[in-house]
Every structure is written in C-alpha cells, then in structure tokens.
C-alpha cells in the first residue's frame, strides 16, 4: 500500500478531515498465513516426500489391497457371526464400529497435529520476512494474532500474551513486534525447553552409565529421545501425534547430520575430547556422557524446529551448559 503511494504522484503535505480518518487497518489474517504456507509448501513437499513416484504407487496399491482384504474379512466375519446368533453379530458390529471410529479419530488427530507443525513452520518463515524485509505496517499484527491463536488456551502463556498486547502501540514497526513476541512469549518457553533438554540428557547419561546391557540402554535412549522431542514440541505448541513426532525426528536427524545446527566441527571435537577424558575415568561413564550429549543435540535441534520464531544469534541455545553439567556427572556418581 505504502509502496504504491510512494511510486505514484507525489502528495503535498496537508491537513485532512479528522472525521474520515480510521486507525491503521489490520489485513485479513488467514490470507497471509495461507500465502506463506502456499509459498513454503512446494519446498516442504520436495523435502519430505520420497523422490520416486513408483514408490508412492506401490505404497498406495498395497494400502488399497489391504483395505479391500480387510473389508472382505470383516464382511465374512459379520455374516458368520449373524448366522451363529444375533447377539454375537451385534457385538462384532459394535466392535468394528468402535475400531473404525477410533481409527478415523486418530487419523484426524494426526492430520491436525501435522497441520500445526506446518503452521509453525509458516510462522517462522513469516517472522523472518517481517524482521528483515520492510513490509507495509499491520502485517505483524496478523502474525501476533496467529501466534496468539496457536497458544490459545495455554494458561501458562496467557499473561505473557496479554502483556504483549498491552505494550504494542501503533508506533512499533513489524520487526519490533516480532522481537517483542520473541522476548515476552518465547523466551520463557526457551528456558523451560532448555531445562527439559538438560533433564533428558542427564537421564540418558545416567541410564547408560548404570544399565547392565547394551540393548537396555539402546532402548532407553531411543525412548527418552522420542519423549524429549514430543515434550519440546508440545511446549512450543506443536502437540505432535505419532506421525508428527516421527517426521520431526526424521527431519531432526537430517539436521543434526547435515547442518549441525548451531554446532561447528570445533564443538564436536570438544565434545569428543571431553568424552574421552570421561572415558578414561570409566568406559560406561564415557558412554553415558556421549549419549547424554547426543540427546542434548536432539533436544536442541527440536527446539530449533519447533520454535515459531527462529533463534537469533543472541538467544540461540548452546550445548555449553549441558556439556558442563554432564562432564561433572562422573564426579557426582563416582
């Protein structure tokens, strides 16, 4: 709107009729989120979907076959049960109905959680755009609106959201509003998420150090990591289902392997070194520390992926404190 004004004919300074002025309008909310999602979606698809189309056909075909087989079997079951007695038939029918209903509800839940994840993703893109590109004023209000709706019904965040609403005036520009939301709403969440990560990595470290068999600590580590990811996602408002968590975990593994997120090779070296010092004290303890660090990396990556506003250089969580904590663990246990 503003850009257009600037480009076209120049308007001399003047006074206007006060009666006809209105407060700066907020643009329709859905439009921008949908727009951002649409912008982002192809990339997401390209990332997430398998490359070969044949694979998809195969999966689809098999799924259809299984569904048809299931249908036949159920029908068979029905007729046989009704042939035996009416009561048994009704029982089977209600069991089928319950199973079917539960399956559909689960599917819907999964779909909704996926949508939430995607929404967070689009919010992050939007936040990035608002703080770097100069946008016509009013878009940040919309961003704030969608963030508020994401955290609707969260009693722990209600005061913070209320505070932001209070403090934003018409003089704040978009990047300031985004920064304000970041500081007021997300910073406390970051602290809690960091504590969660710390706890989880300590758990895995201790479990690994104390477990009698390798199989047990493998199971513990896997279970604890999955739980950690779900906890963090829930904290940031993603509430992922099973598919969602798996998806998150998969994307996270890719992130840990490829981008290394905030950590550089230097950090990895330090970790390995720290690990080997601990290993010198005790092999199991060393393994515990390394497993703990791995969990911490998983958790911090989850924080990066679930946060509606990307971390800046100043508030990016680091492994530093976790590392310190973990390296002091041998001393505590021994």
């Amino acid at each position, binding site marked *: 709107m503003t850009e257009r*004004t600037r480009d076209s004919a120049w*308007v001399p*300074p*003047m006074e206007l009729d006060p009666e006809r002025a209105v407060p700066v309008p907020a643009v329709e909310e859905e439009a921008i989120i949908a727009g951002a999602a649409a912008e982002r979606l192809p990339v997401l698809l390209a990332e997430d979907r398998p490359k070969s189309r044949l694979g998809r056909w195969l999966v689809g075909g098999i799924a259809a076959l299984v569904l048809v087989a299931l249908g036949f079997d159920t029908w068979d079951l029905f007729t046989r049960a009704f042939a035996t007695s009416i009561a048994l038939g009704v029982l089977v029918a209600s069991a089928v109905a319950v199973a079917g209903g539960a399956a559909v509800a689960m599917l819907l839940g999964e779909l909704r959680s996926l949508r939430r994840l995607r929404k967070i993703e689009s919010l992050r893109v939007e936040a990035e755009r608002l703080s770097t590109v100069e946008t016509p*004023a009013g878009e940040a209000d919309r961003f704030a609106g969608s963030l508020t709706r994401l955290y609707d019904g969260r009693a722990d965040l209600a005061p913070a959201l209320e505070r932001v609403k209070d403090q934003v005036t018409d*003089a704040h520009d978009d990047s300031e509003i985004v920064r304000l939301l970041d500081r007021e709403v997300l910073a406390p969440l970051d602290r809690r998420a960091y504590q969660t990560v710390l706890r989880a990595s300590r758990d895995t470290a201790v479990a690994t150090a104390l477990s009698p068999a390798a199989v047990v600590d493998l199971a513990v580590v896997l279970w604890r990591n999955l739980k950690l990811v779900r906890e963090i996602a829930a904290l940031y408002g993603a509430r992922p289902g099973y598919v969602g968590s798996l998806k998150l975990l998969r994307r996270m593994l890719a992130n840990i392997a490829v981008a290394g997120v905030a950590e550089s090779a230097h950090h990895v070296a330090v970790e390995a070194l720290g690990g080997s010092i601990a290993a010198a004290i005790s092999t199991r303890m060393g393994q515990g520390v390394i497993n703990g660090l791995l969990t911490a990396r998983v958790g911090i990556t989850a924080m990066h992926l679930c946060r509606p506003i990307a971390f800046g250089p100043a508030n990016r969580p680091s492994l530093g404190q976790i590392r310190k904590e973990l390296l002091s663990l041998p001393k505590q246990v021994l």
Partner: protein
Amino acid sequence: MRLPIINDLYDAGSRLLGRAGDLVSGGILEQDVRLGVTGLRRAGKTVFVTALVDNLLKAGRLPFLDVVSSGRFQASRLRPQPDPDVPRFELEDHLASLTGPDPHWPERTRGISQLRLSLRYRPNAVLKRTIQPVATLNLDIIDYPGEWLLDLPLLHQSFSEWSALTLDLAGRPPRDELSQSWRGWLATVDPAAPAEEEEARRGAALYTEYLHACRRSENLLSLIQPGRFVEPGDLANAPLLTFCPLPGERRGRGSLWALMEDRYEAYKKTLVRGFFAEHFAKLDRQIVLIDVLGALNSGPAGMSDMKRALELSLEPFRHGSSGWLDWLLGTKIDRVLFAATKADHVASHQHNSLRHLLDRLVSDARSGIRFEGAQVETMAIAALKSTETVVSEHEGRQLRCVRGVPIGRDRPTVLYPGEIPEDADFPPGRERPYNFMAFQPPADLARETRGLPHIRLDQALQFLLGDYLE
C-alpha cells in the same frame, strides 16, 4: 600553552584518584553511571529526561529494556544528588506541566542540571549474582545545553582557525543575512589597530546579536559558537564574553586582534575546560537529541547547518586520535546515542526513513569513532508520544497520517506531513515538501500509571544502560 598542560595533568590526576576512590568505596556495592543528555535545536531534552525518569520509576512501558522484561527489575527511586554545586533537575515541575489539567510542554531549561535515580535489580551475570543477590545502580542524569557540547571542539582550535571557520560560515546563506551588521562592522575595523575596549564591546555585541538571530530564525540554525554568548548567566558583559572572530593573520601585541585572542583563550580555559573537567569528562554515556524534523521543515540550508553541528558534536567522542594530550583529556564515554526526537510527528512507517536520514548525517564521523572508541548508535524516538498513526483517504489514495491536537488549537487534526524518501533528505524538485507540526501533549496523562507513553525510549535505555543492568 604551558599552563593548560599542567592543568590537564592536574585534572587527569584528580580524575584517576576519583576513579580509584570509586572502586575502593562504594564501587562494589553500588555502581554509578553518569548519563549525559544534551540536544541540538530545541530537541526536547527536558521532556526526554522527564519521560525517562517517569518511565523508570513506574517501569510499565519498557518491554525492550532487558532488566524489566526478564523480571529482574525491582524498583527505582529518586535519591539526593551527589554533586553539591549542580542545580537539581526540576522533575516535579516539568511533570506537573505535562500532566496537569492544561497540559503544555515544559519551559526550556538553561544551564546544567542533574538528577540521581537509583535502580534496584537482580543481576543476571553469575559472578555479580554470587556477590550480591540484589544490586543497585545509581543513574545520574546530567542535562546540559547542546551549545556546551559544540564548544568542546574549540579546545583544539586556535583563535585564527576558529575565526576563519566562523567567518566562512557567516558569509554563506542562510547566515549571510543574519550576520550582515556584524560583518559590516568587521569591514570598518582594523585588527592591527591598538585595542580599544569600546570596539571590542561593540564587536562582541554585534556578534552576540547575530548568534541570537541564528537561534531565533525560522531555520533554527544549530551551530552556535561560543555557546555562552547566548546563555551568559551571570557572566553577561564579562571580558570572557567580550570577543568575536576577526579576519586575517595574527597581529602584534596590544592590537585588537591580540586582545580578542586573549579573551578567546580565557573563554576556553575557564568555561570550556571547566565544563569539560567538571562534567563532561566524568560522563559514562551520552545521548544527543536532535530535532531532525525541524531541520527538514526549514529546508536544505537548515539541514546542512545541522549536519555541520552534528559533525562538530561528534568531535569530543573521538578520543585517542591525536597524541598524549588527548589521552589525558579523553572521556570515558563508551556509548553515544544520536536520537532523532519527536518521531511521533510522522506516521509510524516513516520512523525507519527518519533513522536512515540521521544515519546519513552522522555516517562519516561515526565510522571513525567506532574504530577509535565509543560505540555510536542512531534511533528515531519520541520521549512523549502525543499523536497516533491513522489512515485517511485523499483522492482515492490511502495516506498514513498522524492525529493529534496542534499547539494553539483545541480540536484534534489529521495531518499528512509529507513522506521522507528512503535514500534522500528531500523529495527531488519539490518546493515545500514537509509540514511537520508541533502537537500538544496528550490529555489526561495524570491517570497514566504505567509511565508516560513513548516511542523507543526503552530501546534507547537498553542501548545506553543495558550492560550496566546485566
């Protein structure tokens, strides 16, 4: 030149002693920070200090001040001032005039004033937290006229250098008209002639008249040197203020030129150096308020005058550049904020353009300063927000305007003041591109319990004091 050096050594020595004393006595338990507030072109120093103190006392509108937003801030209160010989900043009077039943802007202040505010907070830094769970920061706000800051560069200029610069400036528009009678007088006197007190007084009077005219003129010229000529206080007619720039080279003993030079040096020694040693050298942080919008209103001539004044005012922060004398004279100021005030006189989407404009004005000098010492930042702020941004339609186009009550009227108006281009000071080829108006303070501020409404005052505070409040 001998004496000043001894003076400098003495000053530096006493300052070092003072700093050591700070460390030994209250340095660990209570920290002191001295914030200098000054302004060019009626930038609203008084309102700024009033709003700053009010907001720190109530702490309800400072989301970008880390110590407040992270919940570590406890309270702040006014305390007795530390320096017995500096007048107190009349906070209560100024606040009363802003929040009273008939709100009006406070009277402009003359001279220096000071106020001490103590802030209590829980430190974030681990080391500090272990030593003391609750820390106290004494914030001394020192408010002094912008002309005094512009006087500081005189310390490096000899009389003949200064005369040449001033004469050059006075001969250029828009100053040439204002300085006509003084330059007329200059044409009639012979600097080499024997000194006559009568002549000197006449020259000084005409020169002072010219400076007053500069300050009064609708272009609101900012560069006024020496500053005490327009605010003499009890020094009016003292020989210290009875000189003026003279053309030509140095003349012999007993000449008018020599008399003027002596007085110029005395002015430097007594007033400028005194201000420097007693106040400026003790400052830790500095904010320079600038009425950029006023300069834009007055057109390219006013802008270029302000650019010059800004460059000069940056000079004192350029420490460590020229030898050991500078090192002794150097300030401790390590952060300087240049703030374009009255940002509420433009619609909010223009704040960025305003800031870019200020950036351009200080950019040359700024890079040098960054390299040598102090950190320099620019912002567009409003100490007291007295308008709101609205949208209005004009010939089928949506214009972003400001709504407020202009001074001298009783009903609000909606003003489209003109838009500042992103990359230039003025839209090309326009006669009167801007019309920034002065607005009255908003009504019923008295009921405000969260502090006076402002624009980016909290970000300014974060830049100026954030690291002290860690």
